[in-house]
């Protein structure tokens, strides 16, 4: 019998330590950055990180939902309306909105569980568009075309308090979603993604697991949306429309959908680039588009694969070979 040797791998300690160090550096950033505008941008990056990572979590079941912006909108409008019309404080509305969004997501996920692949993507896309039209048609309750104003502010006017609140929220959400991938549910979902027939033949209930993962994803989307509503105190349906969903998908794809770090890197890079190119005024969307094209043509696995590509380029050059481009 082979005696099991406890593996003392330095990398097991090094990686979490590195990430913890990164979080500490981000937490210390306000000491260096004195402008409230920069803090505002970073807070938005935190919020969209939660949404993008939760979108990727749904895609591990092999399905691609195109309604995530709309679910963020559902959370945002629920929190905003509860705050405005019922006068609830933020520490009730944010969890409540997240839970109700997860419930709505699971209710919607039930009929949608019979759709797969492109049909699922399109069905969810149409659902998302329908949600925005309902918001438009909501009249005074949702604010309609003018947008919802007068949502109760969260932590006063201090940007710093918001910064640490959303940093904490993002870190907790991302750790939860990372752990989720390796729990039994996440592993079953990966099995479903590889082959739904093989997975159901070994007793994995495909429909129920897919409903559950939509619930988990929508919970965090609702959380991000509700946080956004209280942070911004003004909501416009345009923030959650079809193009917003597509941009959320772009955040995931540009970073690399196959790795967990992908959506985080994608969101951060794309949002920082689009903010720094704001000086170019109407020309600034070109920068994001060019970045998209660079990633599409040169980095098939997304920005995450950049170090690997550079390393392989160097090693191949040493051998005197040229890199064969994938078709």
């Amino acid at each position: 019998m082979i005696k099991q040797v406890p593996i003392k791998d330095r990398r097991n300690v090094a990686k979490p330590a590195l990430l913890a160090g990164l979080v500490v550096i981000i937490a210390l950033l306000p000491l260096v950055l004195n402008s409230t505008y920069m803090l505002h941008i970073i807070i938005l990056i935190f919020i969209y990180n939660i949404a993008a990572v939760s979108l990727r979590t749904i895609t591990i079941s092999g399905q691609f939902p195109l309604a995530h912006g709309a679910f963020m909108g559902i959370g945002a409008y629920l929190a905003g309306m509860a705050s405005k019309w019922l006068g609830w404080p933020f520490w009730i509305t944010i969890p409540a909105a997240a839970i109700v969004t997860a419930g709505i997501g699971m209710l919607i996920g039930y009929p949608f569980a019979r759709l797969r692949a492109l049909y699922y993507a399109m069905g969810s896309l149409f659902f998302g568009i329908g949600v925005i039209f309902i918001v438009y048609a909501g009249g005074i309750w949702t604010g309609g075309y003018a947008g919802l104003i007068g949502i109760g502010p969260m932590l006063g006017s201090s940007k710093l308090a918001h910064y640490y609140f959303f940093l904490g929220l993002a870190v907790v959400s991302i750790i939860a979603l990372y752990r989720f991938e390796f729990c039994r549910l996440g592993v079953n979902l990966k099995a479903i993604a590889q082959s739904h027939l093989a997975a159901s033949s070994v007793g994995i209930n495909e429909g129920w697991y897919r409903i559950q993962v939509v619930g988990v994803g929508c919970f965090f989307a609702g959380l991000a949306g509700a946080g956004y509503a209280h942070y911004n105190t003004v909501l416009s349906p345009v923030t959650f429309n079809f193009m917003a969903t597509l941009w959320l998908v772009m955040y995931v794809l540009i970073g690399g959908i196959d790795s967990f770090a992908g959506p985080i890197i994608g969101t951060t890079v794309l949002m920082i680039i689009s903010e720094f190119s704001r000086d170019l005024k109407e020309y600034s969307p070109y920068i994001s588009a060019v970045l998209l094209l660079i990633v599409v043509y040169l980095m098939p696995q997304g920005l995450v694969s950049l170090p690997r590509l550079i390393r392989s380029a160097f090693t191949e050059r040493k051998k005197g070979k040229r890199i064969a481009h994938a078709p």
Partner: protein
Amino acid sequence: MELAVATVTNLLILSSMYILVALGFAFLFNMLGILNLAHGVIYMLGGYIGLALISAMGVNQWAALIITAVIMGAFGIFLERFCFRPFVGNFNRIVMVCVAIIVILQTTVNILVGTQILSLPPFVEGVLRVGLASVSYERIVTFAIGAFLLAVVMWFVNRAKWGQQMQAISQDILGAFLQGINVHRISALTSFIGCALAAIAGCLIGAYLGLGPYMGDFILVKILMLVFLAGIGSIRGIFIAGLVLGTLDSVLPLMTSGAASDAVAVGIVVVLLLIRPQGFFGYEVEM
């Protein structure tokens, strides 16, 4: 009476325009599985190029329609060669390329023209009066051009050699390739036809409803609904689904106001898609 006639003409025009734009999208999708999300922007750009030709260069309107179709068709060939062909079969990368194209074209139009709603000059003036009802010639001509183009395209797909090759490729791409069909040439041709049809529809709608840089988003949603309601691989289904969507869009606003009618129309489409995921005339594909 007046209302009924207006609704029916509206229905026919909307349906024919939806079908016109959706056909090009559906051809490319059936053949190579390319989900061309940039199709709506191509339609928008067609309208603006038509406007530029007519108002800035003073070209005759009917000539401008044809020149626009050729320019956008050439652009379609370019897109197919450099943006879609390298990524055939990779859904994620095609979506990324399409979003990049959408952003680039919308930003360009925004910078060059601005966001105000413009309109092409009407193709024909005057109003036709039959008894109590009156229909403007503009609407009749718009519908007539749409119907004529649809007839020509259907003849092309069913009778012409290249059209039959298109059908062969959408049935089985490998089998078609082994029979000696030049798949690349036919897909370039398909892209040309699709973009040209979208551009003509853009010009016609630009004269009928007006032009805006973001009109592409609206029509993109409509053609996605239409193609998936009809079912992948079905041409006949597109006509019927186009009529259904046109009916929903022209009749529902009579009953409820504004966004509520849009919400009801989207709800009906979602329910239909849930009842029959593979569409009403298509077959289910595993992707």
